[in-house]
């Protein structure tokens, strides 16, 4: 029973990281209608920047995280402006392949800058873990911080999209780009802001991910990136609560699969669940049904 509880907690913690990454995917997809494959690699860059700031320039962890968020925001806006903006009118295949190219570019830049050897990433969260039920259930401080961060980000994003002017234009652009432009919304600026928010979240996700699973490599971001994308699709791409739900469910399924079925098969289980969900509900759990126009 206690072990189940502890697996569930680990699952929710991992799922919270997936949820934060999935937010970046889902917001970009909702507004620019493109899969930003490079998102997972922005996470990796964010983690590397934090790592360098803490261990090479001896900065306090909080400052390091802020710097990493700033760098990732700039990076996200740059990627959008250089690679995706010229392709607004292009087919989705062309944009997807460009995004894959961007993902490889970031991985290889990281490979050249930081080298191929895995770096061990000590947790930036210097808090002791909590022990409950006479020490049978130990909750790591990372778990608590991750879940709290997830909740704060969710609330902040929901408020942002519902209450602010920028949030309103985001919703407008995601509904109908052309009509939004006619209403005087700056579509390009809105898309850039979306990328900026998504990339800043990716930096936070990178730090949280590497604090829990402390190995940092140029390919660190790709698998969590793919899984977070799966989470976004699972929850219904384009929907912010969907990303949260999908991320947490996926994290729990992965950890429970690892614990009770087989470590080797845990990825297969995660992707299997995605396929089943898409077959039953092709727009994901909370996605809107889009009618086909002829």
């Amino acid at each position, binding site marked *: 029973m206690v072990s189940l509880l502890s697996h569930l907690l680990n699952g929710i913690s991992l799922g919270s990281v997936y949820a934060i990454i999935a937010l970046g995917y889902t917001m970009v997809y909702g507004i620019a209608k493109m899969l930003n494959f490079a998102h997972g690699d922005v996470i990796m860059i964010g983690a590397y920047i934090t790592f360098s700031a803490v261990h090479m320039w001896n900065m306090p962890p909080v400052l390091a995280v802020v710097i990493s968020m700033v760098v990732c925001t700039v990076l996200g806006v740059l990627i959008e402006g250089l690679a995706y903006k*010229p392709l607004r009118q292009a087919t989705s*295949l062309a944009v997807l392949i460009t995004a894959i190219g961007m993902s490889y*570019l970031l991985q*290889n*830049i990281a490979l*050249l800058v930081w080298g191929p050897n895995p770096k061990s990433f000590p947790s930036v969260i210097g808090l002791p873990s909590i022990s409950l039920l006479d020490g049978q259930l130990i909750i790591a401080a990372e778990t608590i911080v991750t879940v709290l961060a997830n909740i704060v980000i969710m609330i902040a994003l929901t408020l942002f999209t519902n209450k602010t002017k920028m949030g309103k234009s985001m919703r407008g652009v995601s509904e109908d780009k052309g009509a939004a432009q006619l209403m005087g919304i700056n579509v390009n600026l809105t898309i850039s802001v979306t990328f900026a928010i998504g990339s800043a979240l990716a930096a936070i996700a990178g730090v949280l991910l590497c604090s829990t699973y402390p190995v940092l490599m140029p390919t660190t971001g790709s698998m969590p990136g*793919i899984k977070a*994308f799966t989470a976004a699709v699972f929850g219904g791409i384009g929907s912010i609560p969907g990303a949260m739900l999908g991320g947490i469910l996926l994290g729990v399924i992965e950890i429970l699969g690892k614990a009770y079925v087989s470590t080797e098969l845990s990825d297969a289980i995660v992707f299997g669940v*995605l396929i089943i969900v898409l077959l039953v509900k092709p727009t994901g759990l909370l996605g809107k049904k889009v009618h086909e126009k002829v």
Partner: protein
Amino acid sequence: MSRAKKNFINNLITYGMVVVAFLICQLALSGSIDGFKMSRSLKGQLVPICVYIVMAVSLNLTVGISGELSLGHAGFMSVGAFSGIIMSTWLAARFNMNNEVVRLIISLFTGGIFAGIAGVLIGIPVLRLRGDYLAIVTLAFGEIIRNVLNCLYFSIDEGRLHMSFLDPMLPGKMIYNGPAGATGVDKISTFGMGFALILFTLFVVLNLINSRSGRAIMAIRDARVAAESVGINVPKYKMMAFVISAALAGMAGALYGLNISSVTAAKFKFDTSILVLVFVVLGGIGNIRGSVIAAALLTVLPEVLRAFSDYRMLVYAIVLIVVMLASNSPFIATRIATLKSKIIRKNQTKEGNPA
């Protein structure tokens, strides 16, 4: 010139190009001309070049002709590779088959059949989805195949094949050992067979494209609803393209697996699928000859530029982005168009007013 005739000549050029390239390679291998000899490292690349050409042409069938982005092509390659290896080992152990050519041909077709079966199983759910969703599900299936292969074990004991799931304890000699992959494979692949497989693939794909079915597949790609409304069976033709593409990838996989002495499932990661997709995109989506050329050049290139191998993927990434931007961005497209018209105008004025 009629369209059929144009197609015929076009295909002839493609076949001719492959045959001429093969003859040049044979000449270089024999070393009968002074100073024209193939380096050792290039010799080792001959079969992989054939493998990647077949992979690129078969993926082009899905991506270019059928218009569905597949990100799990390496999954079919791995199914083909391991079923081909197991077949080859079994044939040798059970029937003492010494004729390597026959053994290789049977193994290639086994790889193709198993990958085709995987294609049917995956195609049923995948082809119900569209666009980005389809891409992500093919990616998911590629990962699932790799994961499941890591849990399978095969051994051979007195000519009998044993198989287990998640249990490495099997009688006899292990052929395929879960995460450790297949080891001690008989290297029976030859460059000649690779050449034959390329011709076979081109024959299948080019004939399909120019057939009634091929036109139906392309009609679905261009306007699905219109195609459906004139009575084209959409699921059937989509499935046909997907399964043929998977089976050809399986044959390429078998050729690949039987060319090296040990293979693991990790070799057929997402990266391999992307690599083949890069060949298809750079060769031109839907252009079969382009795929052949791009696959051959981009497989050789890293060998030639061995000194720059650290930058290989970096260069790939940049080339991929630049090509996509150049071919799709309206900004660059208009610049190129004005440049072109300027050059043409210059030539015309030159011809008009001879100095």
